[in-house]
């Protein structure tokens, strides 16, 4: 009797842990989609697994920045969910020196390329790896 219950509890716990980790993973993936800047979209929006980019490796300031006198003076405590000022599109848009498309491409592609060269874990380097038609 007791072993059966134990098994059931174990099963339920296992199922729950799968669903919760799945939910958390989904939360930590950001959908990068800026239709207000890319008026005539050519490519589908990009799912960016933020969590996997933070786990071991780069610091927040490798990607998030606020330049003052050529130095990244970003206060990391401002990196809060929902803060509009940390969105890349707050500073990179159609009228900025580095357009939003280039801001993403330069940052994402150069790191993935560098990691591939150094034979580390890396992400997509070609269009279809990030822009997935579904």
């Amino acid at each position: 009797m007791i072993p059966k219950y134990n098994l059931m509890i174990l099963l339920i716990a296992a199922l729950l842990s799968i669903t919760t980790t799945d939910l958390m993973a989904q939360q930590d993936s950001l959908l990068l989609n800026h239709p207000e800047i890319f008026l005539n979209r050519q490519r589908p929006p990009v799912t960016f697994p933020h969590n996997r980019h933070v786990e071991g490796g780069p610091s927040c300031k490798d990607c998030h920045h606020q330049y003052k006198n050529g130095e990244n003076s970003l206060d990391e405590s401002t990196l809060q969910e929902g803060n509009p000022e940390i969105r890349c599109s707050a500073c990179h848009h159609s009228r900025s020196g580095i357009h939003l498309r280039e801001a993403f491409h330069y940052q994402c592609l150069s790191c993935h390329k560098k990691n591939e060269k150094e034979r580390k874990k890396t992400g997509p380097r070609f269009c279809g790896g990030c822009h997935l038609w579904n």
Partner: protein
Amino acid sequence: MYEFIRGPMVSISFMIFIIGLLYQAFKFFALTRKKELIFINLPFNPDKPPRKQWFQRVVEWFLSLRKRTVWRVHPVMTGITCIFHISLFITPLFLLGHNILLDEAWGMHFWSFPESFSDGLTWADLLCGAIFLFRRIFVRRVRVITTLYDYIVLLITVAPFLTGTFAYHQWFEYQTVIFLHIVAGEVMFIATPFTKLGHMLFFFFYRFFIGSEYSFGRGTRMW
């Protein structure tokens, strides 16, 4: 190996392409030399160079197409060939995907077509390639002068377009397709100077420098 093909090999194959073509050009000028004109290629009389504005000459040239060129004899085939060659050059040059990678690698890039337009050009190119293939298989007078070499060269030219569309539409497994696409592009670069694809360069040499009934200019060089 995999990283090498997707990385440095792209630049290496491009260097082979450029240096190979320069070598072929050098060889052409070393093997030919200027000779006295034996025949005069009407309508360009060398004693009296035509003193006309360039646009007048262009208009005359276009009008003359009506009566003397291959446009008149085989208009359909010539049209297909023209579309094929134009899209062969402009599609990869003004392709957004190529230009983004070029910008990333060298910090420079060309202006790009909208991707749907590039896709249309690619399909046009593939259609022309298919017509060339069927012509070689089914038209007897073409078949008798066709060898395996001709099929291979046709494949080399069409392969980057075929794999490119598959990559763009993400048909099949993307990572494999894009790898094949890069290999196909590199093969085309490397093969061009050393196969009959070298007509990319020699077309102009023959037509402008060699004296014959096909020259556009006053050909003065001979073997």
